[in-house]
C-alpha cells in the first residue's frame, strides 16, 4: 500500500458532485430540447423509479439478507400518501419535496409496524408477513374508495415527476443509502447478513438493526412510490400486485444481492428491455422466472456479486498507473 497515491476527500466529493450535477443538467437539457420523444422520456423516468425501487429492496435483501415480498405494498402506501397530499396542495417546489418525504415516511411507519413483529422471529417469517401485508394493502385500497379511489384508481394526480425531480431524488437516495452502509450502522447490518449469531454475540442489537434496515428499505420504496404517482398521474391497485414486488426482486437478484451498482444496471436493463422490445413482453415473465432460477443455481452472486462501483477508486488506479494491472484483484478484495 505504500506510495499508493490517494485523492483527498474534498476533491473526491467535488468530482462526484460535479459529475452528477452535469448528468442532471445535461439530461434535463436533452429532454427539454425535444431531442428525445415522449415515449423515450417516459422510459427514462420509469428507469429512474425502478432504480430506486431496486436499490431500496437491495437494502433489505442484499445487505440485511432478508426476503421481503411486499415491496409493492410500501411503494403503494408511499404513492397514495404523496398523491393525496399533492392533490390538496398547489404546485410548488416545497409541495413536491413534502410529498416525496411524506410518501417515504408513511411507508417507513408501515415498515416499523410490520418489521418489529416479523423480524423478532428467526426464519422466513418476514417473507410471509410482507407477502400478506402486500395483499392486505391491496384489499384496503380496493375497499376504501372514499380515500383511494378504489379499483378504478386515484385520478388527476399532479404530474410532478419531471426528469430533474426523479433523478435528483434517485441520486440523493442512493447516496444516502451508500453513506448509511459505510457507517457503523451499515456494518452492523452487513454483519447480521454474514452471521447473525456472531453479530449478536459481538454486541450488535440485531433486532434493532434488522428493523432499521427494513424501515430504510420501506422508506425509499415509499419515495419511489411517490415518484411513480407523480409520473403516471393515476394510481390503481393493479399497479401494486405481487408481480410488481417480484419484478423488483428479479432486478436485485440479477444485479447481485448486495451490489448497488448491480441493482442500478439490472433495473435499467430490465425496465428498458420490455419497452424497447414489444414482442419480448409475451415471454417476459417466463424469461424472468428462468433467470431467477438460473442465477440462483449457477451464479448466486448475480451479475456484479457484491461489487460496488467507485469512481474515485478507478481514478486513483489511473493516477497510480495500475488500472489494468490490479483491477481484478482489487475488485475481489473490496467487493
Amino acid at each position: 500500500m505504500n506510495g499508493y497515491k490517494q485523492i483527498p476527500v474534498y476533491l473526491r466529493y467535488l468530482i462526484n458532485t460535479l459529475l452528477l450535477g452535469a448528468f442532471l443538467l445535461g439530461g434535463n437539457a436533452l429532454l427539454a430540447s425535444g431531442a428525445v420523444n415522449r415515449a423515450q422520456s417516459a422510459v427514462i423516468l420509469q428507469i429512474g423509479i425502478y432504480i430506486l425501487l431496486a436499490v431500496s429492496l437491495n437494502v433489505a435483501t442484499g445487505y440485511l439478507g432478508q426476503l421481503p415480498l411486499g415491496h409493492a405494498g410500501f411503494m403503494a402506501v408511499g404513492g397514495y400518501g404523496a398523491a393525496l397530499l399533492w392533490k390538496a396542495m398547489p404546485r410548488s417546489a416545497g409541495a413536491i419535496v413534502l410529498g416525496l418525504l411524506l410518501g417515504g415516511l408513511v411507508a417507513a411507519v408501515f415498515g416499523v409496524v410490520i418489521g418489529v413483529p416479523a423480524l423478532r422471529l428467526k426464519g422466513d417469517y418476514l417473507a410471509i408477513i410482507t407477502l400478506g401485508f402486500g395483499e392486505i394493502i391491496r384489499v384496503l385500497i380496493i375497499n376504501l374508495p372514499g380515500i383511494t379511489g378504489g379499483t378504478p384508481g386515484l385520478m388527476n394526480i399532479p404530474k410532478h415527476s419531471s426528469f430533474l425531480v426523479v433523478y435528483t431524488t434517485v441520486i440523493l437516495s442512493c447516496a444516502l443509502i451508500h453513506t448509511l452502509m459505510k457507517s457503523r450502522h451499515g456494518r452492523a447490518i452487513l454483519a447480521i447478513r454474514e452471521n447473525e449469531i456472531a453479530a449478536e454475540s459481538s454486541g450488535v442489537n440485531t433486532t434493532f438493526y434488522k428493523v432499521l434496515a427494513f424501515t430504510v428499505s420501506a422508506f425509499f420504496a415509499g419515495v419511489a412510490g411517490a415518484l411513480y404517482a407523480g409520473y403516471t398521474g393515476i394510481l390503481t391497485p393493479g399497479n401494486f400486485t405481487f408481480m410488481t414486488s417480484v419484478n423488483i426482486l428479479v432486478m436485485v437478484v440479477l444485479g447481485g444481492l448486495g451490489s448497488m451498482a448491480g441493482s442500478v444496471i439490472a433495473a435499467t436493463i430490465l425496465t428498458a428491455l420490455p419497452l424497447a422490445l414489444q414482442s419480448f413482453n409475451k415471454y417476459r415473465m417466463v424469461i424472468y422466472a428462468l433467470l431467477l432460477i438460473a442465477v440462483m443455481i449457477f451464479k448466486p452472486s448475480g451479475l456484479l456479486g457484491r461489487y460496488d462501483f467507485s469512481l474515485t477508486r478507478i481514478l486513483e488506479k489511473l493516477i497510480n498507473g495500475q488500472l489494468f494491472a490490479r483491477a481484478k484483484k482489487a475488485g475481489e478484495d473490496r467487493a
Partner: protein
Amino acid sequence: MLFLSQCINGLQLGSIYALVALGYSMVYGIIRLLNFAHGDVIMIGAYIALLTIGAGLHPALAVGITILGCVLISVLIEKVAYRPLRSAPRISLLITAIGVSLLLQNLVQLFFTADSRAYPSTAIIPARAIQLGGLSLSLSTVVTILVSVGAMLGLHLLIQKTRMGKAMRAVSEDTGAAQLMGIDINRVISITFAIGSALAGVGSVLYCCRYSVANPTMGSLLGLKAFVAAVLGGIGSIPGAVVGGFAIGFAEVLVTALGFSAWTDAVVFAVLIVVLLVKPTGLLGRGVAEKV
C-alpha cells in the same frame, strides 16, 4: 340450520386447505423450504384434469392422471431446481422457489392464455343432493370431506407406522445424523415431495369441483392461504397443518357469511400476523434452535 350448513361449508373448504397445507408443512419440515411452487402444482393439476377429461377419458382415470402428473412435476422441480441448492443460503432457495412458481404460471398462461376455463366438475362428481336429517348437502361436499379425512388418516399411518415414515421423521429431525445412519436423504426428500404433491393433486380436484373454474394464477391465492394455514398450525407439524387448514376454512366462511366477502383475504393474513405475534411457532409447532 343455516349455521349448520355454514359449518359444513367451512369443513369442506377447510379440508381442502388442510390437504394443501400438508404439502407445505411436510416440505418445510424436511428441507426448511417455503415451497412457493406448491400452489402452482395444484393449478397444473387443474389443467391436466381439464385436458384429460376434455379428451374423453373416464373421470376416474383422469383423476388418477392428475394426481400422477402433480407428483411427477413436483419431484422434477425438486430434482432440477431445489436439489442443487441444498447447501446454499436459505434466501437462494426461497428465491428459486418463487422463480419456479412464476415459471409454472407463465408457461401455462403462454399455452392456455390467462383466461379462466370452465372446469368439468360434474363429470367428476355428479351434481346431486344428499338429504341428511333436515339438511341438504351436495354430493361434492360430502365427497370432499370424506376423501380429505381419508387422505389425512392415510398420511398419518404412513408417517407413524412405515419404515419410510420413520426415515422421513428422522431426516426432518436431523438430516446429517439421518444420513450417517444410512438413510438415503435424496430418496426421502423425493418421496416427501411426491406425497405432498399427491395430496395437492387430490386437493386440486376437490378445489376445482367446488369452484368449477381453472386459470393460471388460481394456485397463488389458494397456495398462499394453505400456506398461511400451515404456518398458523405450526409449520413442519402435520397435525398443525390440518388444524390450521380447518381454522382458515372456517374463518373464511365466517367472514363471508357476515357479509364481508371482499375482506376475506385480508382477514386470513391478519389472522396469520396476530398468531405469529402471540405464538410465533404456530398453534402446534415447536421452535428449532440453531446449532452454535
